[in-house]
């Protein structure tokens, strides 16, 4: 096995990983950074983010308002010290990105423009047309090319964290082009591997989002936090799950049921706002969880439109006009025409809720530290409890930046702290990891298929842990997933090549996804209340008495995870009512 | 990486491409008529002589001839590479050489008129 020695290893080259890499390269050019990613950086799923990134910049806005929107939007499951730090740093980071060349959309006077977004009381979402994440990712990636101290390991698939003496001292990764296995010995490690939406069948998430980093950390003993909170985005294209950004509604698009009725007014988000004049935090600009739940109710009432790809409602943008749509939502138009055959300029687009974002992830604090020394996590794979029970659209791109930098600062400080790598112990552990990979590789005779198990997992989660959950559906999911984890032992790789063996990577990803799926279902089963994106039909109310707490799921080998709870950090905002009716009274 | 000296000729190429796009087709049409033994009046010795005697006429003829050559020399250089000829330097020297000589000759003849 080959060894690469570095100061800081960053796993994941999406928005979060890249931001962290730059922060280290800028502050400490003497430190070596190994940036490891299973896809080329610009393929990371940050590229798919459309809407934008929130940060207080305009005079009519304030940090307090952003704080309140975030905490309320998260149904008070946010750690408020984290939110506080976040809103303060947000605009700085977005400006930094501007200085690196991000092509933000502009006001006529040349200042950065902002657009309205769901759950935000003031327009504060910076955007680059409807390709915000794409531009953020490419700006960051291209900026990393400036720094010689960042060494990229593109298409290296990370499989394990190396933990010795209770400290994270590196990772194991497979060079995908050759199948060679590498150990990266590092003084500190940042995990930034993105979300895990792929555990569900219908998702806006790309194929890379299989939660590898979260699962690696989980197996290394770090708890996963709040995994039961999975966000459905209300507007996905029915055939593919491609997202139509919240910006559609921010720009004035409205939702209609089969009768053309704007049904959101029936679900506590009214009164109806005039067409083309969206009012913040009301109707279509309510938060995602509420909108997706309203869809479910409409579906129960038979007010949705049946299509080949499931029941839909309409997203109507026809009143916005061609010029506005082409300027602000060009990608949306392109996507609707290409993948649904519907031109939003002239027709209503059928849409339905789609799994979008994992609020939960590796347990971290305001410092982006995990409980394990030397290990940091950031981005969608982490749960620093900024987003609570429901992330507000456009907070997560900013989160990548704010906490990407934070993780970097702490990781480099730790790396400079004089800890010696225990090379022999690390190598030994790496050898074991290698052995596990080879075993998987050489195994034969099993009758299970990767795609078969994966499908069962997805279907079971959707059925049991979807927009609405009950004890019974959750129990079924838990049982199924537990079974699937056992059946995983029966898979066999048909591809025996060392070169770019996607059969192997899919097998590794499946294992990661199964682990995470279990924490989602078990966490949801244990949380006997409804909060944010976690809605139980058998416990319809929020229960602050018992569940104003974070779920922590600990890995227990073959067994189901051990669930513990942790208090939410509350500084200034006591739990209140989430009000999305009529202009945020 | 050293900067290329292609700009030296590229300007002439680009100008030539544009100019010849405007003028060459119609000129070819005119001489095509001459090729059928039916030259239009402008090609009568007196007329064309008068045209070329005028300094504006001289300039026009000079520019058309010279830029046609530079344009062709530069573009053929790439085209010949595309056809598999790898003697780029020789081709460049020959092409640009012919263009340079043609340019000088054109000036010389025109001054004589």
């Amino acid at each position, binding site marked *: 096995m080959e060894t690469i020695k570095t100061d800081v290893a960053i796993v994941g080259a999406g928005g979060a990983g890249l931001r962290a890499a730059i922060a280290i390269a800028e502050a400490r050019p003497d430190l070596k950074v190994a940036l490891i990613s299973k*896809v*080329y950086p*610009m*393929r*990371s*799923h940050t*590229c*798919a983010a459309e809407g934008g990134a929130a940060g207080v910049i305009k005079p009519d806005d304030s940090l307090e308002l952003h704080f309140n929107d975030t905490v309320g939007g998260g149904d008070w499951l946010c750690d408020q010290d984290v939110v506080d730090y976040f809103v303060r740093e947000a605009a700085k980071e977005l*400006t*930094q990105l501007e*200085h*690196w*060349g991000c*092509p933000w*959309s*502009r*006001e*006529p006077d*040349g*200042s*950065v423009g902002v657009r309205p977004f769901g759950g935000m009381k003031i327009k504060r979402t910076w955007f680059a047309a409807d*390709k915000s994440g794409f*531009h953020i990712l*490419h700006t960051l990636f*291209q*900026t990393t*090319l*400036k720094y010689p101290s960042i060494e990229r390991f*593109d298409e290296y698939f990370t499989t394990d964290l190396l933990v010795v003496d209770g400290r994270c001292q590196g990772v194991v990764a497979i060079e995908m*082009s050759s199948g060679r296995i590498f150990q990266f010995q590092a003084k500190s490690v940042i995990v930034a591997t993105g979300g895990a939406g792929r555990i569900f069948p219908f998702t806006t998430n*790309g*194929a*890379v989002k299989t939660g590898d980093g979260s699962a690696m950390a989980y197996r290394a003993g770090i708890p996963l936090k709040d995994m039961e909170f999975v966000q459905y985005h209300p507007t996905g294209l029915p*055939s*593919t799950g491609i*997202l139509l950004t919240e910006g559609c509604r921010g720009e004035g698009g409205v939702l209609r049921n089969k009768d053309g009725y704007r049904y959101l007014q029936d679900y506590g988000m009214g009164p109806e706002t005039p067409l083309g004049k969206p009012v913040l935090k009301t109707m279509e600009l309510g938060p995602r969880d509420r909108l997706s739940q309203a869809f479910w109710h409409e579906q129960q009432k038979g007010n949705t439109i049946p299509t080949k790809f499931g029941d839909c409602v309409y997203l109507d943008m026809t009143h916005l006009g061609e010029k506005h749509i082409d300027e602000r939502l060009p*990608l949306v138009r392109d*996507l609707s025409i*290409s993948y649904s055959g519907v031109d939003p300029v002239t027709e209503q687009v059928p849409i339905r809720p789609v799994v979008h974002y994992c609020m939960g992830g590796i347990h971290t604090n305001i410092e982006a530290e995990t409980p394990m020394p030397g290990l940091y996590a950031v981005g969608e794979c982490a749960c620093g409890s900024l987003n609570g029970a429901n992330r507000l659209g456009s907070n997560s791109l900013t989160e990548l930046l704010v906490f990407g930098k934070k993780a970097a600062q702490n990781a480099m400080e730790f790396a400079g702290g004089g800890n010696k790598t225990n090379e022999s112990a690390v190598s030994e552990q790496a050898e074991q990891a290698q052995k596990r990979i080879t075993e998987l590789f050489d195994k034969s005779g099993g009758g299970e*298929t990767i*795609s078969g198990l994966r499908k069962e997992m997805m279907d079971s989660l959707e059925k049991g842990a979807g927009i609405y959950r009950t004890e019974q559906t959750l129990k079924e999911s838990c049982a199924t997933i537990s079974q699937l984890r056992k059946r995983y032992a029966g898979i066999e*790789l*048909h*591809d025996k*090549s*060392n*070169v*770019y063996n*996607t059969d192997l990577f*899919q097998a590794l990803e499946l294992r990661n996804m199964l682990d995470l799926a279990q924490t989602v279902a078990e966490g949801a089963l244990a949380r006997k209340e409804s909060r944010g994106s976690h809605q139980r039909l058998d416990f319809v109310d929020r229960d602050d008495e018992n569940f104003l707490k974070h779920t922590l799921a600990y890995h227990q080998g073959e067994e189901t995870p051990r669930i513990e709870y942790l208090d939410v950090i509350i500084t200034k905002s006591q739990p209140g009512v989430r009000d999305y009716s009529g202009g945020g009274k | *990486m050293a*900067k*290329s000296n292609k*700009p*030296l000729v*590229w*300007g002439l190429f*680009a100008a030539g491409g544009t100019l010849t796009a405007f003028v060459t087709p119609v000129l070819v049409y005119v001489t095509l008529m001459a090729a059928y033994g039916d030259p239009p009046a402008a090609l009568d010795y007196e007329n064309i002589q008068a045209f070329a005697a005028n300094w504006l006429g001289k300039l026009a003829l000079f520019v058309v001839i010279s830029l046609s050559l530079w344009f062709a020399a530069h573009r053929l250089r790439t085209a010949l*590479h*595309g056809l598999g000829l790898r003697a780029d330097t020789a081709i460049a020297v020959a092409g640009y050489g012919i263009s340079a000589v043609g340019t000088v000759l054109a000036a010389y003849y025109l001054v004589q008129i």
Partner: protein
Amino acid sequence: MSDLQLELEILRYDPEQDQEPRFQTYSVPCQEEWVVLDAINYVKDHIDSTLSYRWSCHMAVCGSCGMMIDGEPKLACKAFVRDYVNKTVRIEPLANFPIERDLVSVLDDFMNKLRRVKPYLIRKEEKPLSEGEYRQTPAELNKYKQYTLCINCLCCYAACPQYALIPEFIGPAALTMAHRYNQDSRDQGRAQREEETASHEGVWDCAFADACSLVCPKHVDPASALQQMKITSTVDWYLEHLGMGGKKS
């Protein structure tokens, strides 16, 4: 269930088994709305799990899935199966790149070239963050916006005859990215980039074949960027050689 049947003739190459690439045919029941990527995923999931290829977003934005479909470089996630019914579709890895395995090509060449053209904002003096953003009007933004849309799918390299003939050619997408920054009102790095872009291997190897722009799935129009760069490079060259402040930004 399936609306149409598609015959896919997919290039297979496993360097540990095959001396050279071969083709393997799969018959895939497709739905009308499918893209070619869906059909390939079907093969992977249901017929032959040994097939290797890259994909992620399924929405034409990550740039992973560029491949030759019926001889044309395309994004598999944006090529609709309905355009290929009743015939055998040939699927190959992007032309002009070495084949790593099956549909996976080796992209190191592009990654190195991209770095060489310095695709990032270069300033003589950085403005402190506390002074806020650089001002840039919508008109100034539009001047380069189109060139920011490149997803690095490399379809343009697969189509460019000059890249096929001259592997050293920096090529359409990387050069376009240099142009994108050159055209950005905030940038002052053109002179630095010209060390690469104005070299032989830079814009001067482009023959304006325009194939890059024809195949570009994001309408970036690299051909236009390269021709504009030739004009500026020429002007800069003359300024430099006539001794007129050669090092202009």
